[in-house]
């Protein structure tokens, strides 16, 4: 059996990214959408770390990038949940189907 190489990591990351996009497009709940976006960001992290290990094993650029992505994603989720709180207070809903006060 062949050893696990770069392509395996990239395939998993690509699948994870597609899963995130699928959730983003089909989910109706804001929290679930936020979770789908997290999946997409984690796919990026997996990509970064795998490239760092296989393409530039001497430099830690990819790992560094992944650390930045994780930090920024955490900030994004914190702000995101706060905004979902705020809209729940104003409108008592977290469903995207009811976010229709502004159209065209």
């Amino acid at each position, binding site marked *: 059996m062949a050893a696990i190489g770069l392509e395996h990591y*990239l395939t998993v990351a690509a699948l994870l*990214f597609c899963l*995130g996009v699928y959730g*983003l497009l089909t989910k109706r709940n*804001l929290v679930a*959408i*936020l979770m789908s*976006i997290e999946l*997409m*960001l984690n*796919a*990026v992290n997996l*990509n*970064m770390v*795998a*490239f760092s290990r296989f*393409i*530039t094993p001497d430099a830690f*650029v*990819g790992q*560094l*990038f992944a650390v*930045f*992505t994780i930090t*920024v994603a955490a*900030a*994004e989720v914190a*702000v*995101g949940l*706060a*905004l*979902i709180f*705020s*809209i729940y207070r*104003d*409108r008592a809903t977290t469903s*995207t189907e009811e*976010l229709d*006060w*502004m*159209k*065209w």
Partner: protein
Amino acid sequence: MDLSLLTTEIVTVALACFVVALDLLMPAGEPRRALGYLTLLGLAGIFVHAFTQYGLNASLYGGMFRVDDYAVFFKQVFLAAYMLTILFSVRTADGFAPYTGEFYGLMLFSLAGMMVMASANDLVTLFVGMELMTITFFVLVGFNLGDGKSSEAGVKYLILGAASTAVLLYGMSLIYGYTGTVVLPEIAARLSASPAALVGIVFFLAGFAFKIAAVPFGMWVPDVYEGAPVPITALLAMASKAASFAVLTRVFLTAFADAPYNWPLIIAWLAAASMIAGNLAAILQTNVKRLLAYSSIAQAGYLLTGLVAAGPDGVKGIIFYTALYVFASAGAFAVVAAVRDETGSDDIAAYRGLARSSPLLAAAMTVALLSMAGIPPLAGFVGKLYLFLAVLEKGWFWLALLGFVMSMVSVYYYLLVVKAMYLGEPAGAPTADGCAALRWAALASLALTVLCGVYPTPLAALASRVAQNFFQ
């Protein structure tokens, strides 16, 4: 390592912290307008200091952060946009009490993010600066607590913004994986034809097309512009767009310039789609904020033509047009803020008879809108001339023609607003005259727009010097 190169960024962040702290220390009943004026003063100081950074062309952190003329010019454009916006937002900010200090503080943090973007010379720095700007804007768009529209706009911007960031990052990861580096000039040296590089570039472009609000990625613009507080709408339209164009131009002209793909063609299609969809959709609008939103999509299209030209002339066009788009938008949004504060409405109907109650504001709005339409002798005409000539010289005849035709179409819906202001009968509602600071912002915008149209030489000369940055 010379940290003095970072003065503009460090002082901006320090000013933000200072404003927030001062807000906490001031007695509860005191008016908070002083915070706005203090912020304005600080930004004016940074603006003047930035002049000393021209001609430095220095790098920091092993080439990750560049202070070249191009970055300095864009920083000054952001500073001008923020100064004008703060002038006309003092009254809107009064309504955010007790969070006025946070409002100014967050605005300054987003400005710091833009400054980092303008100087970023590698993908990590670029990403961090961009997220500092974007995440701060998520908060600011939903800043009108208790207003369902504002929080809806905030959530929509959050979801679409975060998703576009993820797409952009995926593109960056592929570019990094293929070239093994994140520094822009090194990417340029190592990029060659491969599916990974192609997908990376396309994802990167898609992520930034979202930020500059180009069709088809700009569908968030009307809703977010309508729901956000007026000063934030103004900043999204002027400064956020300018920052994203600064990055997009730098990345495409340094990292992807020699990529073995015909990327100008893709950008030309984006530009054409933005010009057509933005201008046609704007005709149907009855809300001035939505009208300006669709117009800003069209403006992104005009600016993209400069990137299609991909030469010194095109970059000069982008730089010049960005600056005067800031001048014109500031005036338009100042009037929107005045009318909004008085009548609570953004409908064109609320602008009826504005010329009688406030001739200055009506004149500022008219000049701003006609400049965006590109009517001579206003500044927008000169800007469009530079952009379309640059693209013509590269043989894109159809794109220049389309830009010209679409500019003519845009005159129609801009004049609808002008007609309401000058020929409409006031509905008897209280007259919108704005506070003194707001009138100063409108006056400054009017003066700059007319001046740059009649006598564009100084700004144009500066723009052509700055545009040489990528072509030495």
